[in-house]
């Protein structure tokens, strides 16, 4: 037995050590690593009825990935324009949602992190409560508001600002508002954690030296809060790109989200390998994008999740 395992069992006792090790291995290998590998493997296989799985037809193929780029074989178009457009639109929209959330949440995170008093705790509760409400219900609430006879339209038409109701849903405004709404807390929390630990004296000192407020933020607060900002942005980006509920409920009839395509492959077309391939494409692209951004802004992986 290697020394570190021996130390581990010495420290935790044999029974407890075995329980800890067992649970950790089950989680990391059984739930995280193997299923992802299994999905990867699956995405390279043809869609076969169950009896033929493992049979002679079950060979590795790139067909599922080709489909995303070139569309069905013998299709009328050179490229799978529909799916590709959805894919890039999803990524772009996720980036927009992330930026929107960052701008919206930075001031509140700064305010909560740097001011003192009992009202901060009340604010914190008010922040957390919406997060405890079901994702579907939050989307539903926005649909009531953005609906054609919803509160906003009634208000604006009633005030005479618009003479006809505006279609928030078809124009995807409801969707973006819903996605932003869903992940506000995930953006605020990491930023708040970091900003809270920033010594207020640094800001005082900068102010004392005559720096205007925007320069204080640009030169002092934002560089300090970078781990929190990147952590929040990463989470919001990944979750928006992978969101399913909000696009299903708030998305306009003509605009699809990439996850909806995956959902369709699984539930409507019953083509699991194709769905797995799409999922892999989504996962890998998102990871690569986040890593590239982290490289660009010089952030470490260890900062995420803190």
């Amino acid at each position: 037995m290697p020394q570190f395992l021996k130390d581990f069992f010495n420290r935790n006792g044999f029974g407890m050590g075995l329980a800890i090790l067992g649970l950790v291995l089950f989680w990391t290998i059984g739930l995280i690593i193997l299923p992802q590998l299994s999905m990867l493997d699956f995405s390279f296989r043809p869609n076969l009825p169950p009896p033929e799985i493992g049979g002679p037809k079950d060979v590795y193929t790139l067909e599922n990935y080709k489909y995303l780029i070139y569309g069905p074989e013998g299709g009328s178009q050179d490229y799978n324009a529909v799916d590709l457009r959805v894919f890039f639109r999803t990524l772009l929209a996720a980036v927009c949602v992330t930026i929107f959330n960052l701008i919206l949440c930075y001031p509140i995170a700064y305010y909560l992190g740097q001011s003192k008093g009992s009202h901060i705790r009340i604010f914190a509760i008010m922040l957390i409560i919406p997060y405890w409400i079901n994702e579907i219900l939050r989307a539903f609430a926005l649909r009531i508001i953005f609906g054609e006879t919803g509160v906003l339209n009634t208000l604006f038409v009633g005030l005479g600002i618009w003479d006809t109701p505006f279609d928030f849903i078809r124009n995807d405004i409801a969707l973006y508002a819903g996605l932003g709404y869903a992940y506000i807390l995930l953006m605020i929390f990491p930023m708040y954690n970091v900003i809270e630990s920033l010594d207020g004296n640094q800001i005082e000192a900068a102010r004392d030296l005559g720096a205007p407020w925007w320069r204080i933020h640009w030169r002092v607060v934002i560089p300090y809060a970078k781990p929190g900002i990147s952590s929040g942005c990463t989470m919001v980006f990944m979750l928006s790109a992978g969101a399913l509920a909000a696009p299903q409920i708030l998305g306009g009839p003509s605009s699809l989200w990439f996850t909806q395509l995956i959902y369709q492959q699984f539930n409507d077309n019953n083509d699991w390998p194709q769905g797995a391939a799409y999922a892999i494409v989504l996962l890998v692209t998102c990871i690569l994008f986040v890593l590239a951004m982290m490289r660009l802004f010089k952030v470490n992986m260890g900062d995420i999740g803190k």
Partner: protein
Amino acid sequence: MNNSFLRISIWVYLVIFFLYLLGPLVIMSVTAFNSSAFPRMTPWECLTFQWFGELFQDQRILNGIKNSLIIGAGTVVLSVAMGLAGALMLTQIWPKLRATYYTIIIAPILIPGVVLGISTLVFWDRINRMLGLGADSVLSNGIFLTVIGQSTFIASYCMLVLVARLQRYDVALTEAALDLGATHAQAFRKILLPFMRPAIASAAVLAFLASFENYNTTTFTFGEYPTLTIELAQKVRYGITPSISALAFIIVALTVFFALLNEAKLKRQELVAAARKQATVEELAGKIKLPSFFAGNMAAVLLVVFAVATITVVGTATAYNPGQCIANVKEQKRLEAEQRIQELRKQREEQRKKREAEEAEQGGDQQSAPKPSNNSGFGNVFAPNTLGGDTEEESSGPETPPSNNGGFGGAFDPNSLQTDQ
């Protein structure tokens, strides 16, 4: 930059922010009490509690709640256990493996839920086949798959909560217990576990809530056991009714209640701890005087206000009968509808006359009939006319909302969607 200007803009910003955050929930809650068949705030028709009654008779919702509770319990147990084991491992893993290990156990938070659902489904399906088990085995059971799939990432959340507290744990405490004769299991149960209890409680609540509201992963794994969230999503996607608002209201109320309760309890603990510090030996021995539950405890006061409000609402609900109001509104709607029909008929009549006159003039070479009152051009597809058939006949029915002033909005009108179901 003027200081008071900054201050005012901060407050304006805060108000807007919290309006964005809480407004939708408030509006949604309010629609639960409007008798309008479509969840809306305006126009306000009658105060009603009928949607709550409908909710409690909805077998699918009740079944969904049951499944959600079972799956939630399973997920809490599994993910707190894995999260705790993961956190313990993180504090003592071989330093060279630490970064890799951390990346692996934090990754599920960032992996899209859809991907987790798919990979869980695919992996266990394969295991099931490898073991030669049938389609009805435990491994392909919806509850099992959902618990497994959700725990994959919920355990990461639990781990983060638990490791924060574990870092403040002094390993010497466990060693002291061992030294005093405890076994490792006893030291774990009597020393580490009580120390971790607050964090375990938070992690369990977090895990349950995350499981209860999860959609992305569950939608691939639920099989024969749809959770409440799945049922809600089905309902919301294929036609919305205020009974969903009623459910939302209950969930919002429960959440607020427990948040206040927790806050009040925390505040009380602080006060008690402060009192203990000052207490003399005699007071501790027998008659420690606790400060009254409310003293200096805002949250407790709010909690009581909240409870009183709830009792009032429930009391009103049992006594209140909106029948008369609803009848009035129906009557009014009927009148309005009739009036509209009259108007429409008149309009048609006029148009017909005009057309006849024009045809008479131009000899019928132009057939363009002006569209009747459809203000926005692009909405046609979803207008009630196209979906529901004859508008005039339908709008004369008593259930129709009184004003459908834009063409496309009808897409979210229960009437128009009935054809889809």
